[in-house]
């Protein structure tokens, strides 16, 4: 506890750096995977390829990816962009399957009804399919957010600032409290972002709560 009291500022700075890397990655992976999930959902020939691509990306170990990626991106290993792109790839890999399942779960009768009242493709997607797939997408996004926030720390061994630096520094100098503080801070911000997502879900998808109450 004393270590934490004396080093509050270090932990706070590391937490901010951690969020700077993880939040953009979470947003980017969501924004990219939803259209791709739609492709997989809409065209069955693309489904196998896209879902397999996702699980293949997910099988690539993270630290090696951080080393190889600069070759493609033209950045250095210690570049923030490098970390954000790597994390986005993993987020995408997780989200693609959840997104495809969520879009598949939209009742066909709703889509047909929208078609029957004459809604065009884009408007049907944004006003019918996307909101109805909302709960499934949210569930996927929550998994992505928690695992991304946990994954950022590995970049610490490469010397990139995040809560991972607390592990590296704590290990090298033999300060157990610093490592424990890093783990706790990771769990706390993962829970905080998760809570925000749940609240955002309640605000954006109010009917999911109403139907949950009715079914009880």
């Amino acid at each position: 506890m004393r270590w934490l009291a004396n080093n509050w500022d270090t932990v706070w700075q590391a937490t901010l750096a951690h969020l700077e890397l993880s939040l953009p990655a979470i947003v980017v992976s969501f924004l990219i995977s939803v259209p791709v999930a739609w492709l997989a959902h809409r065209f069955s020939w693309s489904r196998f390829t896209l879902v397999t691509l996702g699980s293949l990306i997910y099988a690539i170990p993270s630290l090696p990816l951080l080393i190889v990626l600069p070759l493609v991106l033209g950045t250095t290993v210690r570049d923030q962009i490098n970390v954000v792109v790597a994390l986005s790839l993993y987020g995408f890999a997780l989200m693609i399957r959840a997104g495809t399942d969520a879009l598949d779960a939209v009742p066909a009768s709703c889509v047909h009804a929208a078609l029957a009242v004459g809604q065009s493709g884009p408007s049907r997607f944004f006003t019918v399919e996307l909101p109805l797939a909302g709960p499934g997408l949210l569930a996927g996004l929550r998994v992505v957010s928690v695992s991304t926030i946990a994954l950022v720390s590995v970049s610490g061994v490469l010397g990139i600032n995040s809560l991972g630096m607390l592990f590296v520094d704590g290990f090298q100098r033999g300060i157990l409290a610093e490592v424990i503080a890093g783990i706790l801070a990771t769990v706390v911000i993962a829970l905080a972002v998760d809570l925000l997502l749940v609240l955002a879900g309640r605000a954006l998808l109010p009917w999911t709560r109403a139907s949950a109450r009715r079914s009880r």
Partner: protein
Amino acid sequence: MNWLMETLEWIADPTHQSGPDGLWALIGQHLAITGWASAASVLIGVPLGYLVGHTGRGRMLVVGLSGAARALPAIGLLTLVALVAGIGLTAPLVALAVLATPSVIAGAYSGFDSIEPATLDAARAMGMSPSQVLTRVEIPLGLPQLLGGIRAAVLQVIATATLAAYVGAGGLGVYLFRGLKTQDYAQMLASAVLIVVLALLIDVLFEVLTQITVRAVRPRL
């Protein structure tokens, strides 16, 4: 492409292949760490998952556990155990087993959970005892999902075993950290490429195993 050539040359260089920190020795270490940690997580995870799946008790615990494990940073857990247990093999083995076990529990549990209740009723109606239901119905039918859980666990272990070198326990991560310290990008890349290839090979192996299992448990008509 230039770097790729240099990396391949690095890997092909005979002086990097033999000796106590040669390629083959480190691949062996990496696989040994992966094997032991995965075996430990299977030994702990399968009975627990079966227990929850068979009795239907403690479902929330399984869901909570796998969620909590996802939030744990691997490098944090590893350095924590290493500070307590010291440099060497203990830390990565304990940390990796802890990280991998929830996937195994979830796989074992969901395999049981996905069996149709009617199938279990039929087994009981035929006069099977609870232990027969377990060994002849639940375990075989749950195998594909269990394999899926073990696959996820092993992939996570083989990836995270890279960090074992960080606490002095060897494995292919040795080249990565050595290259990092000496600014030798070719060596880092060689390590990265080898680990990625190893992980993908294991993934393919599990894919084949899963196909065989699915075919074996599918009812023959």
